[in-house]
């Protein structure tokens, strides 16, 4: 089966239009069922006991009193799960080690962060389950902890894993370290590049972890039968991946677990890995009852996500006429309690927007006493790009060159050699810069204390394992069974549109559904902006298969050669020059006869999609700064992005707007506050300040379409790129508003005011 379908330009009837989404009515009427909306007769409620310490050895766990409480049906602890081998696997996000997966879902030797699960109970009601948690006695030996990435890298810092030696350094270290891995990317000779430079800017930046902030807390329902089969309903970005992880840590056969994905109330990378799912199955196995587990918002903040906080150093060298001669960065990323931050992706995204001869990026993956980081929309890229695009902006200003002009002078284009490996194929970076420069926003007047900022982002986009099935039903309608989760972006609509376009029929005649893990073969997560690209490609393959089968069937029915049958506008018709005339047959007519002429007709695809097309975006933002309070108001925002092809432009705009809004929240006020004891102090939406409607302006979008040659409709993917640039764009806008550069995220009012006052004091 092909793993890439080449782009073909053609007249489009459906692709590019805005039909209503198939899940729309269910979602506006309350009928759509999310994770917490599933119930089974006789179900128990499962709750998790979490460590109140950032770092502690678990000396003993006594569950006797909890088990004795009436209504408690099962308790699980570390003793209920097998030790897993040290085995890396690509089934999850950011590479996972099963030894860590089993420890993250349930602490073993040590609790490694505030909120780390240490036991779970299943009881007849929520209140009984809560009462049971209070009866579990855990004896802790509290250890010194470390949550700051730079502190954690120092020799002598409290060690999370005594057996962790830094990978990627020669010679192999003799002492354990919190630095799990060091990696280095580069090309050319940076020392020589800096020697050629006439202007050098070198800066250091710091960011805090931020949470994905999906509104639906993790929720699942598990039912284990005495015959060794389990069913699981869960809110996930990848039900096949969750099944694989559960099977592994529970030592079950993959096919004995059937996972049905529920509607997902936001994920953004945060629902790529299991948390409660394996616990729920284990509790169900032990109690012989279905077990439902729904996280509270506090648990979501203490136990899941976030994206890492980081320390970033960037150095850029340039000639006076604005050509970058050398670029260097050091990225020190928090991994949380277990290795596996997105420092790798961040390193590769840091400078890829530019055509550079001399580059060096060093990344460190550092364990700290915080929840294990999860993916978050373009994982790691916004952090690196905040530093790089801030320095690029400062450089442009130093050289007296317009910031878009400076970027155009150095922009990556087709054929540009990347510093992580291949040359770039056809890309639309320059087109986004030019569209931004031509946009009215870029020339609009500004008032006092107002400033405009520009920044750009790049994301690879990905393909990966994907399956689907397209079944012709007896009335001529079709069901499209997809294996990738529609995480919100409306991918079900997009796939159905592509299938309908291929078949030349109305969108409404294709009913897209997401199948459970028993319905299809393995699918990777919906992540990395892959779904519309990869699942779209699979859907097109399935549709073309169906068309071929339809033609063959009509040839038999009409008793003409296959070449004489063409498929056009939803009908089998005599092919031009095919040499045979016959009465055309509609899809409905064929479907009606299908059962009596050889059986029903279906197409299916099982691919590992290759050829994802990189995405680039340019953002423009206007801000106003209140110099007396340090408060930043976002006045106007424009996102320009190359998406390859917008299958459903309204949903593409939604991705661009939503990504930008998340980036704005990241920039302005989102952060975790930890006490000196390493305990999270703001595990709720009141003090974890995500943007509300009145914090934001309209977010304008400009969709640029430079087709990806490796997708039949030119799709690149669009979900990741829009979150990358906002932090830097806002920092650059603040600098233009008040002449002050911000080096630490978030740009919260107390920090901004302090920076203003420090700058004033420095001037005096």
């Amino acid at each position, binding site marked *: 089966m092909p793993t890439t379908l080449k782009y073909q330009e053609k007249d489009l009837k459906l692709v590019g239009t*805005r039909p*209503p*989404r198939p*899940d*729309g*009515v*269910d*979602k*506006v*009427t*309350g*009928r*759509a*069922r*999310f994770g*917490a*909306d599933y*119930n089974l007769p006789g179900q128990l409620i499962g709750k998790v006991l979490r460590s109140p310490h950032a770092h502690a050895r678990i000396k003993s766990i006594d569950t006797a009193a909890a088990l004795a409480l009436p209504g408690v049906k099962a308790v699980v602890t570390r003793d209920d799960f097998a030790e897993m081998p040290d085995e890396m696997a690509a089934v999850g996000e950011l590479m996972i080690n099963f030894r860590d997966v089993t420890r993250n879902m349930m602490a073993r030797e040590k609790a490694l962060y505030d909120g780390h699960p240490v036991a779970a109970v299943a009881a007849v009601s*929520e*209140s009984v389950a809560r009462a049971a948690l209070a009866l579990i006695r855990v004896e802790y030996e509290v250890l010194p902890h470390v949550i700051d990435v730079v502190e954690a890298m120092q020799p002598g810092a409290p060690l999370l894993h005594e057996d962790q030696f830094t990978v990627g350094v020669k010679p192999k270290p003799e002492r354990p370290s919190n630095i799990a891995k060091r990696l280095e990317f580069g090309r050319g000779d940076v020392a020589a590049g800096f020697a050629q430079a006439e202007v050098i800017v070198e800066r250091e930046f710091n960011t805090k972890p931020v949470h*994905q*902030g*999906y*509104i*639906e*807390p993790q929720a699942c329902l598990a039912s284990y039968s005495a015959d060794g089969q389990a069913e699981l309903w869960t809110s996930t970005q990848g039900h096949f991946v969750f099944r694989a992880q559960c099977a592994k840590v529970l030592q079950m056969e993959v096919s004995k677990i059937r996972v049905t994905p529920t*509607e*997902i*109330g*936001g*994920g*953004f990378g945060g629902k790529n890995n299991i948390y409660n799912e394996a616990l729920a199955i284990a509790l169900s196995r032990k109690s012989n009852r279905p077990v439902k587990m*729904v996280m*509270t*918002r506090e648990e979501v903040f203490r136990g899941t996500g976030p994206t890492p906080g980081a320390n970033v150093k960037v150095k850029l060298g340039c000639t006076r006429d604005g050509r970058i001669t050398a670029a260097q960065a050091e990225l020190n990323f928090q991994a949380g309690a277990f290795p596996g931050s997105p420092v790798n992706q961040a390193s590769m995204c840091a400078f890829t927007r530019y055509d550079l001869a001399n580059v060096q990026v060093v990344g460190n993956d550092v364990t700290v006493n915080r929840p294990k980081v999860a993916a978050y929309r373009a994982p790691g890229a916004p952090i690196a790009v905040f530093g790089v695009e801030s320095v690029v902006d400062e450089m442009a200003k130093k050289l007296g060159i317009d910031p878009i002009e400076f970027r155009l002078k150095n922009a990556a284009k087709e054929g540009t050699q990347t510093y992580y490996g291949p040359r770039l194929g056809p890309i639309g970076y320059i087109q986004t810069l030019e569209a931004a420069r031509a946009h009215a926003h870029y020339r609009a007047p500004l008032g006092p204390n107002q400033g405009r900022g520009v920044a750009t982002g790049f994301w690879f986009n990905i393909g990966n394992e994907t399956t689907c099935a397209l079944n012709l039903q007896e009335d001529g309608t079709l069901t499209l069974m997809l294996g990738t989760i529609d*995480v*919100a*972006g*409306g991918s079900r609509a997009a796939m159905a549109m592509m299938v309908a376009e291929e078949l030349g029929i109305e969108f409404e005649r294709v009913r897209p559904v997401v199948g459970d893990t028993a319905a299809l073969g393995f699918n990777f997560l919906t992540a990395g902006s892959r779904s519309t690209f990869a699942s779209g490609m699979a859907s097109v393959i399935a549709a073309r298969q169906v068309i071929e089968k339809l033609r063959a069937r009509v040839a038999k029915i009409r008793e003409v050669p296959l070449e004489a049958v063409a498929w056009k506008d939803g009908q089998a018709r005599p092919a031009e020059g095919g040499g045979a005339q016959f009465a055309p047959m509609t899809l409905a007519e064929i479907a009606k006869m299908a059962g009596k002429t050889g059986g029903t007709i279906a197409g299916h695809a099982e691919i590992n999609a290759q050829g994802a097309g990189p995405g680039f975006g340019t953002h423009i933002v206007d801000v106003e700064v209140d110099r007396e309070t340090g408060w930043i108001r976002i006045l106007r925002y424009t996102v320009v992005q190359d998406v390859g092809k917008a299958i459903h432009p*309204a*949903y593409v*705009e*939604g991705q661009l*707007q*939503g*990504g*930008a*809004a*998340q980036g704005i929240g990241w920039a302005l006020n989102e952060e975790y506050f930890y006490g000196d004891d390493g305990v999270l102090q703001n595990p*709720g*939406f*009141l003090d974890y300040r*995500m*943007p*509300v*409607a*009145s914090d*934001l302006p*309209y*977010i304008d979008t400009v969709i640029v379409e430079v087709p990806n040659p490796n997708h039949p409709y030119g799709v690149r993917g669009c979900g990741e790129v829009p979150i990358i640039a906002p932090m830097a764009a806002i920092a650059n806008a603040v600098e233009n508003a008040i002449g002050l550069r911000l080096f630490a995220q978030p740009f919260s009012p107390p920090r901004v005011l302090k920076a203003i006052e420090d700058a004033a004091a420095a001037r005096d």
Partner: protein
Amino acid sequence: MSRNHVSTTVNGDRVEFLCETGQTLLEALRDELRLTGTKEGCGTGDCGACSVTVDGRLVCACLMLAVEAEDKAIQTIEGMAAGEALHPLQKKFIEHAALQCGICTPGILIAARALLERNPDPSESEVRYWLAGNLCRCTGYHKIVDAVLDAAREMRGA
């Protein structure tokens, strides 16, 4: 644990249920009455996903005890459409792509209806401030605001 008997009206239907004193209206709606269209996003009144109206007043169902619902008239998302006919807000949300994952959508629709009942012609800013209690993480609010303004226009007959 003794449970309280509550008799109330939900979407015009007389209903009865038993609840613990500490149980919220949200828990009663979802767990006792199986009306799961009202969502829990935070349980602390900070996200608005559980927005319902009680005697016409917009509230968070997570911040009201179930026992307080005695003899009240409660409206949830399940009562918004009239049979098969969607409310103009519901139609406009679909038309404007004002929903993505949809978990905040029921709460936002209930809140938006409460706004339009008081103020049939709100400004963009009024919509944004009224909906400030309803977090959405997917959309950036752009299309939500547009959908509410367009629904208001249609409902005014403008």
